[in-house]
């Protein structure tokens, strides 16, 4: 395997890890506040459809992004109402929203465009196009670092860089702000937060809505940057991989980034079976590589690689004592 191939693999890794990072950090806010969310997949799908459709109508990718975020937030609101206001089962609510999203996106896309549940292909300003970082062209010929900078680091859409920004921002919010401290507290011991005079409902709703925004970014990236338009079931389980990454990272932002990059790398490898074949003497089917993130997560859950302890109050609706 030569240097160019490695760079190509890393480039694909970053592209594929971006939606995982958005969705994983999205899940982090919700779960850290004590609301389990297995509906990341559904919210991404809704966002992908909304952004694909609006970007096509307006020709502006930013309008598409806004629509994607709004669509995802609408679903987040339902999740919040069900699991916080009506104290319903959070896991079942997540399952229900995933099905709703899976069906509704196809229904709406079909009603709008009549192309078998797809949105029409996006071109030009209706997509996030790659941006070349300053100096990339000039550095291209510098040995070793030049191609790395040019191929892997430069030349992505703005959302890719935003994803890394979101990771840093989330670390800061979680560990350096009052909101973050309270958010982590409400996921561990809501009664204590309530006693301190802070609204548990308010905190959890804001966390769930942030989850909505970030899933919106993940979905919009899928439809307007990674691919050109929405397609039926296009998220293909990424919401669950993100969930796996979140557990793998033990609900910590920076570790979540590394987990998403690792799982993105597996996805990139699964696409390049020729590369895998050239390294190992025996043939590894692509389906094994696709299953790797899930297998690794089971190992982590089993406590063989350190123990993954979820936020203590996760999944429990909070009932104020009267």
């Amino acid at each position, binding site marked *: 395997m030569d240097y160019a191939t490695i760079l190509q693999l890393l480039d694909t890794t970053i592209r594929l890890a971006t939606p995982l990072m958005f969705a994983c950090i999205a899940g982090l806010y919700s779960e850290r506040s004590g609301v389990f969310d297995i509906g990341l997949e559904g919210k991404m799908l809704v966002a992908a459809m909304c952004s694909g459709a609006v970007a096509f109508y307006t020709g502006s990718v930013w309008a598409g992004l806004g629509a994607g975020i709004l669509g995802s937030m609408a679903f987040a609101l339902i999740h919040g109402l069900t699991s916080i206001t009506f104290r319903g089962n959070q896991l079942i609510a997540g399952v229900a929203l995933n099905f709703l999203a899976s069906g509704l996106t196809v229904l709406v896309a079909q*009603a709008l465009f009549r192309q078998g549940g797809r949105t029409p292909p996006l071109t030009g300003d209706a997509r996030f196009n790659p941006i070349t970082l300053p100096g990339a062209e000039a550095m291209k010929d510098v040995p070793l670092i030049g191609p790395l900078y040019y191929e892997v680091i430069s030349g992505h859409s703005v959302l890719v860089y935003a994803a890394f920004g979101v990771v840093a921002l989330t670390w800061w919010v979680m560990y350096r702000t009052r909101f973050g401290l309270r958010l982590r507290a409400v996921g561990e011991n809501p009664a204590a937060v309530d006693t301190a005079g802070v609204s548990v409902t308010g905190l959890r709703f804001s966390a769930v809505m942030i989850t909505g925004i970030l899933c919106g970014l993940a979905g919009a990236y899928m439809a307007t940057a990674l691919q050109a338009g929405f397609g039926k079931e296009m998220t293909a389980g990424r919401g669950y991989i993100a969930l796996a990454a979140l557990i793998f990272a033990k609900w910590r932002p920076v570790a979540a980034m590394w987990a998403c990059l690792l799982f993105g790398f597996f996805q990139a490898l699964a696409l390049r079976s020729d590369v895998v074949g050239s390294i190992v003497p025996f043939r590894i089917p692509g389906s094994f590589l696709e299953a790797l993130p899930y297998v690794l997560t089971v190992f982590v859950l089993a406590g063989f690689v350190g123990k993954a302890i979820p936020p203590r109050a996760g999944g429990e609706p909070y009932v104020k004592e009267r």
Partner: protein
Amino acid sequence: MDRLPRWADLALVPLISLLLAAIISALVILAIGQDPWEAITVMVQGSLMSAYGWGYTLYYTTSFIFTGLCVTIAFHAGLFNIGGEGQAQLGGLGVALACLFIPWPHWSLALIGASLAAAAFGAAWIAIPAWLQARRGSHIVITTIMFNYIASSLMIFMLVDVLRPPGQQDPSTANFPAVTHIPSLDELPLFNLIFTKPVPANISLLIALAVAAGVWVLLWHTRLGYQIRAFGKSEAGARYAGISATKITMIALMLSGALAGMMAINNVMGEAERLVGNSASGAGFIGIAVALMGRNHPIGVVLAALLFGFLFQGGAELGMWTKIPIEMRIVVQGLVILFTGALDMMVRMMLTRIFALFRNPRPVGAA
């Protein structure tokens, strides 16, 4: 909060949830510019108004009874098995291996053998998540989701690289030998008076009903069933009563997995007569809706499975005869899960208020 009368709790709450889901579905159909009345007519016409339609409705019902019971038995132990889909796919693998590699003398023996294989494979697929739940405290929901994805990768590998006959293009096994053909309803005496044309519904329907009765006996009339329900109501209480948490978790979940696996005798052995990719086609997930709608009782599960059989067959008819895409049935499925499973409390709050109005009429003149 006031308690609802038992009849309201058992019948009214699910019916109102269903009504809410139906209203929103109608609004969705209106919103995409179609006619809800036409939709329901087409669905009833295509699934309930002919023996042929019933043949399909009952075929889906059979699968959903198995997966609904799968979710039910785990729910009674306080566990949420979301992995029915993967377990049903593995059950299909069990059926395929049993049918392809064992020379059966007669279909009845093949059916017994294949059922056992399906149950064993389904149970084996949940064994690791069950053990992790029981001994290492890993959340069963997350592990079974992971195992669904691992199952689909495994099945792709098995079908593409192992079981596909040489020279065949599509990823599936060879056709099962003719001796393993189990009778469909049009080939069974008495039933063939109603079903005159070939239908996919088959003898597994009767097995599904028998299994539902068996689950009822198990849960409410055996020591093990009592232990499962006690464990589900209060883990601490059950431990105090000397019930082993590990044992009950393992048994309840493996029974659950076995039930999901047994679905394969309907779709793989009874209908396709070979194993194809994505054989469970979502029935494992529909089990969640069926169990919730059926209030986790075998009778409720059978009725809810029938309802979803109608929705599934009716949904297919929608896709064929109207401009409403077949995905409408996934929307309805999501709405039913949302209202019966997650917004249960909302419906209950509403009803409690209405009942309170009737129960204590405010005395006239009292302020």
